[in-house]
């Protein structure tokens, strides 16, 4: 069964550093998403991406965040200057628009900012 792949599974970074979280969506999917889950809390929407541009973003997705699809397969989330409160699990998801079967989620990247 096709999977969404996220790397790394765990990343530790120093406060103020930039991090890039990587995702490989399912190959025929055209919608891509990032979600965040702070430890013990709900899963929160960050951003959706379609046709090489952001289609919707939440209040959390401020100027320190950016997304990119640098080639035909990767979808990245960049956090420019990490803060302690950015520590969370970050989930990537993808879906196909033609016939909606739901989202497929990756297994997540645990980001720890120290």
């Amino acid at each position, binding site marked *: 069964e096709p999977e969404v792949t996220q790397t790394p599974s765990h990343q530790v970074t120093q406060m103020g550093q930039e991090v890039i979280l990587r995702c490989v969506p399912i190959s025929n999917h055209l919608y891509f998403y990032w*979600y965040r889950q702070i430890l013990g809390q*709900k*899963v929160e*929407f960050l951003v959706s991406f379609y046709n090489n541009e952001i289609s919707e973003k939440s209040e959390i997705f401020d100027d320190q965040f950016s997304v990119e699809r640098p080639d035909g397969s990767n979808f990245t989330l960049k956090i420019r200057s990490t803060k302690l409160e950015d520590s969370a699990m970050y989930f990537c998801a993808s879906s196909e628009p033609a016939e909606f079967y739901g989202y497929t989620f990756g*297994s*997540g990247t645990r980001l720890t900012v120290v």
Partner: protein
Amino acid sequence: AQSVTQPDIHITVSEGASLELRCNYSYGATPYLFWYVQSPGQGLQLLLKYFSGDTLVQGIKGFEAEFKRSQSSFNLRKPSVHWSDAAEYFCAVVYNNDMRFGAGTRLTVKP
């Protein structure tokens, strides 16, 4: 405002007992509805989903959910809980191709 509500933050049931986790939504039209399960430190696993048709949907691990339009609810049920079902359960809705999650219900299973 559009929202997904899981009224129960934490539920404890005995192994072998039945389970019902509540989920309510408030959207103008019927969204697509999902239940996900998350074990500690793990990702989100899809249990089941409702798009249209039969309002009682069957999922994996013996779970089922019933969509009730009149109550804007999509409650998750299992007739007999196993210790391995202890986890966090999230209800989610997709409306206009965007998914939003409820706050989650943590399930504890007593021996």
